[in-house]
């Protein structure tokens, strides 16, 4: 069983209140950092920890922090990305709902490290209940002297505010988020300049995911080196995985990076296997934007090595036979799931969420949705699959922000791995509207788990 650094106390009654959180050792990282460390020493610990951004891109957090420009007399900002809209991902909402003070504590320590005196948590607007929870937690922390002027007598001042979004997946992209926080449409900015140089209000800004900020708390408490002992290789520490779809026990799990996918999927400690005694057909391992893999390739790499829940192992095989860790949104599809319908669903999502600034993304996502709609509804042509791949290639790499790539990859990977199912939808159009293709040749090797016995 892995160590729980973030969720250890999640089931303690009242852990959402300041007093209970504090009684479980909460806010110790604030005390340690503000009383015994310099901001640069905090950054150093985060660097040593090897923590990689948990929002999707996996960029090393300590390195990102060290890029922050620090011109004299100019305010700088920390903005927490709590937009969580990537289909399949629901860990940040979970964390904010049940253990909000962990995020507040992380924000205080991180803002101190970066020299920010005003910080914002940008929460997607649909999470009004979580916004209320965070506002209450902030008020509690402030009343106890952990926020506001001269925190714990250290001379450090910090105001922390929660900002609601308005319902737009694109505002999870960090520059779109900053535009939105400035009261504008969520149109991603052309980079450079990067937010570290010119971010919120043109000031140096760091944007980090909820889970990244929360992870700073154990890193400061235990030291970066201790944190880096968990995990495997360059995938250090623990990761929250949102597990959904056709699982026996969907939910949010904190895993040590490096856990075998097979164990995660089938052991009773985690997902407990596929629901209703069905077999696994496919997995989207890191949120809708990453390539979908058939069962055989998610459990084992093409070299027949066990696939692990780590940045490197999930990416093993590149885009041909691998996928990505992404945001840790793990969706399991059982034998009854229709890949064509699912791909259409994703394409519709990206078309709906495209901000419309770049024509390849705006038009391409619309085309893919249209073509997939006709395939799913029994009016497709054999040439449609190549057409889809062609459109996806024209989007990929040709847009201002990565949403274009995120729209292209799920379609391209579905056709790569499940072309037989797409073809069956063309040849058996009428039948495809009434029944499912099933598992076919990529059927999962049934789990052989020692722990499951």
């Amino acid at each position: 069983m892995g160590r729980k650094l973030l969720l250890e106390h999640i089931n303690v009654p009242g852990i959402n209140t300041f007093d209970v959180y504090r009684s479980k050792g909460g806010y110790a990282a604030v005390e340690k950092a503000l009383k015994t460390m310099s901001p640069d020493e905090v950054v150093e610990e985060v660097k040593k920890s090897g923590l990689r951004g948990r929002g999707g891109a996996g960029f090393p957090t300590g390195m990102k922090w060290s890029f922050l420009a620090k011109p004299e007399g100019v305010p700088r900002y920390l903005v927490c990305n709590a937009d969580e809209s990537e289909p399949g991902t629901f860990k940040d909402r979970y964390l904010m709902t049940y253990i909000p003070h962990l995020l507040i504590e992380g924000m205080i320590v991180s803002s101190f490290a970066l020299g920010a005196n005003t910080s914002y948590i940008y929460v997607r607007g649909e999470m009004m209940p979580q916004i209320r929870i965070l506002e209450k937690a902030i008020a509690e922390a402030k009343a106890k002297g952990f926020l506001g002027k001269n925190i714990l007598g250290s001379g450090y001042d910090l105001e922390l505010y929660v900002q609601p979004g308005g319902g737009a997946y694109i505002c999870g992209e960090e520059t779109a988020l900053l535009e939105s926080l400035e009261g504008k449409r969520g149109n991603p900015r052309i980079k450079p300049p990067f937010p570290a140089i010119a971010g919120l209000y043109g000031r140096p800004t760091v944007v980090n995911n909820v889970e990244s900020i929360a992870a700073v708390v154990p890193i400061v408490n235990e030291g970066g080196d201790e944190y880096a002992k968990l995990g495997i290789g360059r995938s250090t520490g623990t990761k929250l995985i949102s597990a959904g779809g056709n699982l026996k026990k969907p939910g949010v799990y904190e895993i040590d990076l490096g856990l075998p996918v097979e164990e995660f999927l089938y052991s009773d400690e985690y997902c407990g296997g596929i629901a209703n005694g069905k077999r696994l057909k496919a997995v989207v391992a890191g949120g809708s934007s990453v390539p979908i893999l058939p069962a055989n390739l998610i459990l084992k790499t093409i070299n027949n090595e066990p696939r692990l829940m780590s940045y490197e192992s999930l990416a093993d095989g590149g885009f041909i036979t691998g996928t990505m860790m992404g945001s840790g949104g793990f969706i399991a599809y059982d034998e009854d799931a229709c890949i064509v319908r699912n791909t259409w669903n994703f394409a519709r999502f990206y078309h709906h969420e495209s901000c419309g600034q770049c024509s390849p993304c705006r038009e391409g996502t619309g085309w893919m949705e249209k073509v997939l709609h006709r395939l799913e509804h029994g009016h497709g042509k054999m040439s449609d699959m190549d057409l889809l791949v062609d459109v996806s290639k024209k989007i990929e790499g040709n847009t201002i922000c990565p949403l274009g790539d995120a729209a292209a990859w799920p379609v391209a990977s579905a056709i790569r791995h499940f072309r037989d199912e797409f073809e069956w939808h063309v040849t058996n159009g009428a039948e495809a509207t009434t029944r499912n293709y099933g598992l076919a040749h990529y059927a999962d090797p049934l789990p052989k788990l020692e722990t499951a016995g």
Partner: protein
Amino acid sequence: MLRVEDAQVPVEFSPELIAKFDDVVSRYPEGKQKSGLLPILHFVQAEFGWLSVPAMDKVAAYLKILPIEVYEVASFYTMYFLRPQGKYVLEVCRTSGCCLVGAEKIMDHIEQKLGVKEGEVTPDGLFSWRGVECLAACGFGPVLQIGPEYTFYENLTNESVDKLIGELTAKAKN
């Protein structure tokens, strides 16, 4: 879309509402009050149920920005309603994770139960419904949310939906 006739609905902002605006605007640096636009639009929508043109114009005047700056934001984000809705808007997640566990059937059921299509309002003005994208609750699907507090209802079944609609109907009549 903005419609000309909506410009006729008169709007007054109460002192309580203005106080909420003031609190929001105090969170940003001097001169950056426009940052308050999204939160303020949520307050206005919670009060009136939707964003009419006069309401948006008043927000623009309050924030000292152009009306177009408000319209372009209100029309960009999916949570803002530019026309009147039912008192309760049932917003059901229609994305992959929830579809795997029956979201499409739930939407069919809601359509039948309420007798109106997606986006339409029931004759008594109480309900409308629509599909929305992933609500970050995929492990507890199917899910729906109801504004203005955006209360979540998870692991939906036809029965739990019926019960919810029954409760809301009773609540509205009291």
